[in-house]
């Protein structure tokens, strides 16, 4: 029996951990859906859930690399706040004075400023960790306080608003989506690419004479991928825009207001997240940089003896984290439409929890990008669901805290059982 199951699993080339996480997510969703009387699994709520997850999930992909190399970054929440404040000031106070209010280049210049600052600050922290050999815990704990204080200082505590109208599209909301037609196109393209990649990989493996999983197994996997992609697009395309929003959007564009219903489609922050996820997955699996991250996490000494410059690697990993934090800051501030002092508060813990629930081992060497994103989705589902049910905020914290510990315990048990 057990043999058949493991053979089945190896046919599909999937591990049970990911199945467990998906199972946990489905259980969460079903439970919340029944408790809320069907309000949880609606296109509207799933759309909101996807938008709410995006910011933390983007950072969680970077946190995977940090934790895999046996470090930690406690500063991402504060850094997000500070970068949000820098970008807020850039687009509302500095650039309009230089270019004029509503200039079409404001959003992209703002993001560039945010990215440069994020990468530079990340690299600086990485340098302190890698070259000065100060423990990452201390460096980023310091950063945690420095960045939050700096964020306050930039505007002396004032909230920055309103943000540039193009910039705000990156936060989702009624306007910040692809719309239904474009969403279908994206869905179909993504499905095609997924199937083609699977076929190419299969053919390459056969060409080398390796044993490939039976065709039906990979066929089912490809089917699942297409089903998930198209299902997601379908749900996002089922969330109707409210009449008021339709009127507002079409009036701004000077178009006649349509009679038929208009649907949201995929939110732009989710598109950003998916792009980040794809790029980070490629980096982790298909580049030297990614390979060295995992090698260093598995055995730093061996990595060094193999000629890997682990110090420089640390700088790069933290710089990448800083860049991703800037992207997350764009999403978070654009979603709110303003930047307050508390932007990103406690996000470091959400991000670390997402990565850890997603199977990233704090001992280093193990962790996946998709796991971290699933982890972020589980965390966000838990919080949104409890809020919807009407659980008190303190109790929400208690539950999330307990779930985190339980998830890590299950992960450790799983690893011990499978000898990984």
């Amino acid at each position, binding site marked *: 029996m057990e043999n058949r199951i493991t053979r089945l699993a190896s046919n599909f080339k999937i591990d049970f951990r990911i199945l467990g996480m998906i199972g946990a997510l489905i259980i969460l969703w079903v439970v919340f859906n029944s408790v809320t009387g069907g309000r949880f699994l609606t296109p509207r709520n799933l759309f909101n859930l996807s938008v709410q997850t995006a910011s933390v999930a983007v950072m969680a992909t970077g946190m995977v690399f940090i934790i895999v190399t046996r470090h930690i970054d406690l500063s991402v929440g504060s850094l997000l706040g500070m970068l949000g404040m820098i970008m807020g000031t850039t687009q509302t106070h500095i650039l309009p004075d230089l270019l004029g209010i509503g200039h079409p280049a404001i959003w992209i210049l703002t993001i560039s400023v945010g990215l440069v600052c994020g990468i530079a600050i990340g690299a600086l922290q990485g340098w302190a960790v890698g070259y000065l050999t100060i423990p990452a815990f201390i460096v980023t704990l310091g950063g945690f306080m420095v960045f939050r204080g700096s964020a306050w200082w930039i505007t002396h505590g004032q909230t920055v608003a309103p943000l540039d109208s193009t910039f705000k599209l990156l936060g989702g909301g009624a306007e910040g989506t692809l719309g239904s037609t474009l969403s279908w196109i994206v869905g179909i393209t993504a499905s095609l690419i997924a199937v083609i990649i699977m076929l190419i990989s299969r053919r390459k493996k056969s060409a*080398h004479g390796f044993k490939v999983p039976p065709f039906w197994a990979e066929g089912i996997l490809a089917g699942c991928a297409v089903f998930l992609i198209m299902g997601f697009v379908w749900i996002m395309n089922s969330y109707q825009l409210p009449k008021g929003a339709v009127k507002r959007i079409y009036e701004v564009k000077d178009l006649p207001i349509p009679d038929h219903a208009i649907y949201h489609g995929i939110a732009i922050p989710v598109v950003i997240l998916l792009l980040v996820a794809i790029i980070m997955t490629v980096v982790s*699996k298909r580049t030297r940089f990614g*390979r060295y991250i995992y090698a260093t996490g598995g*055995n730093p000494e061996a990595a060094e003896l*193999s000629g*890997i410059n682990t110090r420089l690697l640390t700088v790069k990993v933290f710089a990448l984290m800083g860049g991703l934090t800037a992207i997350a800051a764009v999403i978070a501030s654009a979603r709110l439409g303003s930047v307050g002092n508390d932007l990103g508060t406690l996000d470091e813990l959400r991000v670390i929890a997402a990565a850890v629930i997603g199977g990233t081992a704090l001992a280093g*060497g193990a962790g996946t990008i998709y796991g971290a994103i699933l982890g972020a989705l589980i965390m966000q589902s838990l919080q949104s669901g409890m809020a919807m049910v009407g659980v008190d905020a303190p109790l929400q914290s208690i539950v999330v805290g307990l779930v985190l510990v339980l998830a890590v315990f299950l992960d450790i048990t799983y690893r011990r059982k499978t000898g990984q």
Partner: protein
Amino acid sequence: MENQKHNGQTPLVEMKDIQISFGGIKAVDKVSVDLYPGEVVGLLGHNGAGKSTLIKVLSGAYQKDGGEIYINGEKATINNPRDARSYNIETIYQTLALADNLDASSNLFLGRELMTSMGMVDDDSMEAETRKIMNRLNPNFEKFTAPVSALSGGQRQSVAIARAVYFNAKILIMDEPTAALGPHETQMVSDLIEKLKADGIGIFLISHDIHDVMKLCDRASVMKNGQLVGSVNVDDVTDDDLLSMIILGKNPSENKSA
């Protein structure tokens, strides 16, 4: 006298007056050793005698404080493992230096990955190459996709050996290669050493097993307390001579002249 049989030949490696100290303690104190093509030189000594430290200077893991290294008669600069690899120096460390979370081929090619034309890591080609060399070294090896933490001691050792052999080493450093192995695998390592020797590769073999050294080595250099006791042709000495060099730090040639 020891270099009689190398008449006129340039040594593959010549380490001259190597010094390295840690916190005021001279771990290696003006030690000179050399190695010729197709030769196996044993490095002997107690734990802490400095033999591993000396060899880590050659493999680039440590930076020497003084002395010079010549490769093929030319002065060499070795500041890190990458430099050492560029001189075709390969090392099999006692700890094996494997990343346990990666599979055999990722370890074999670590730092020297095969890339596709798109600049991506080419796992399939690396696995194919790994299968080829493992077929040669250890035909029983099967777990190509499992992380090396799932392998037995002998299998892990063969991954470490494959890594050194694959990249056309000219100078091979083996640090206690048989310490963790069973009799069958030890024989495998001995056969491999003979084969590599025949190919003209020079091998430094670190060991504290005198029988290993007597069997596999052409010459032996003995260290004690960071200093070189002496280098001898293995054929000219007995087990006891080597033992007294290791324990008492007494060089048999000095005894004879005295």
